[in-house]
């Protein structure tokens, strides 16, 4: 069984062919109907594992004023291109109403002043984008828990869906996101109206953006217009619970 040159050549060719096969195989699998779903099973495992080790109420790390990023990066939509949003922005959101609807005992329609009057919180946290970068900002906002206390969700409500003002495609699909009730009632979950001590800039989601500090940036919907309590994602976009989720990103964005 000596390593003859023929055998060596055969082996090298086999390795090269194997490599090419691996690459084209991965491409084909990525585009198949079934394999991405197999890969996505890991999301459930990750979610369960994180729920197991991370306490329901565990807080995301908070920072000091010295850590704040000089400029908080705006990603995705920097200014929603819709007539309705522009009209609101032109009057400095004086006509803005935050709707709370769906599976609630008390639907609400709140002005920005009413949202600001809700029990709130100020926190300096790190924003982690799915792309890999992080920025640190000081957020002030109404606790989502306080809003839900007013609206009184029905027992069958399982998720909070955020309906936003930013059109995402040529068809005018408006951004949407959702979180579960564990995150909704979490102490650091806010509808933020201030960034770094100033009214939330349009580039960062004015007049209200969600903060869910233990998940990635795409969960933190900007330009929030309505909060909707639902029992399932059926009927919401493509059914995966969020705009980016319907493009293949994980619903649980804790990693």
């Amino acid at each position, binding site marked *: 069984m000596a390593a003859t040159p023929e055998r060596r050549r055969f082996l090298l060719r086999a390795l090269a062919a194997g490599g090419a096969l691996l690459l084209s195989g991965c491409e084909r699998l990525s585009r198949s109907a079934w394999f991405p779903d197999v890969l996505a099973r890991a999301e459930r495992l990750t979610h369960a594992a994180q729920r197991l080790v*991370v306490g329901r109420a565990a807080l995301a*790390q908070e920072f000091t004023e010295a850590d704040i990023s000089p*400029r908080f990066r705006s990603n995705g939509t920097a200014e929603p291109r819709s007539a309705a949003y522009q009209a609101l922005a032109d009057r400095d959101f004086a006509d803005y109403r935050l709707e709370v609807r769906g599976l609630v005992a008390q639907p609400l329609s709140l002005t920005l002043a009413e949202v600001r009057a809700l029990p709130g919180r100020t926190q300096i946290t790190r924003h982690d984008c*799915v792309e890999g970068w992080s920025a640190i900002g000081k957020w002030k906002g109404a606790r989502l828990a306080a809003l839900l206390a007013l609206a009184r969700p029905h027992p069958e409500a399982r998720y909070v869906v955020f309906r936003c003002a930013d059109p995402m495609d040529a068809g005018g699909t408006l951004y949407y996101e959702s979180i579960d009730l564990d995150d909704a009632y979490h102490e650091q979950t806010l509808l933020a109206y201030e960034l770094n001590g100033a009214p939330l800039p349009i580039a960062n989601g004015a007049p209200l953006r969600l903060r869910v500090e233990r998940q990635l940036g795409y969960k933190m919907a900007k330009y929030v217009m309505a909060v909707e309590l639902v029992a399932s994602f059926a009927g919401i976009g493509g059914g995966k619970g969020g705009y980016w989720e319907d493009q*293949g990103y994980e619903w649980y964005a804790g990693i």
Partner: protein
Amino acid sequence: MMQRRHSLAVRVMHWINALAAVLLLMSGLQIFNAHPALYWGQSSYSGRPPLLELEGFPGWITIPGEQWLAMGRRWHLFFAWVLVANGLAYLAYAIASRHLARDLVPTRGDWRGIGRSIADHLRLRHPAGAAAGRYNVLQKLAYLAVIFVLLPLMAITGWAMSPGLDSVVPHWVELLGGRQSARTLHFICAWTLAAFVAVHVFEVAVTGLWNNLRSMITGRYRLPAESRDGRDA
């Protein structure tokens, strides 16, 4: 003279590990390409410039080949579980079967011969006879470093990038320098592992590619004859 070299468990876990490592590196580079810059500290926007800024890696080395972050994450976060599960199974096996104590922990003689082993490696002289059936000291140290330092660091720096896991114990990510430092360390460890694999494959090739490969597939290994100068290595 033929001998049994690698147990079935080690052979199976070796190839699972190899597949997972390759897929993790390639999908990891896909994820890196979504923001091809590295920083030190907690934040990318601290007022300090990045440590490193690249154009991004070419498509032939990423999974998928085109820019497709969502799919890269699916591959990466799936095979991360495969790597961790396989690694834990290997560790349990290596301890229970005494593979670790018997084959991987350097002996006193190994330590004494480390200088000669380095010199032999540099001159591409390799043990023959019975000594070829055992791991040499540099091989043992390299494997131990991968098993107990590099792979755990890959997992820990990966977890440190998770905003969910960052909240498990307050401030634990600061032990690594912050989330962006963890991302940088993840990148460095990944390429250190890639360098290990390159050296590993090189050594496999120069010490009898077919013989080594067969021993990791079927378990059968042919001891090379004693070297011509009669020195028993």
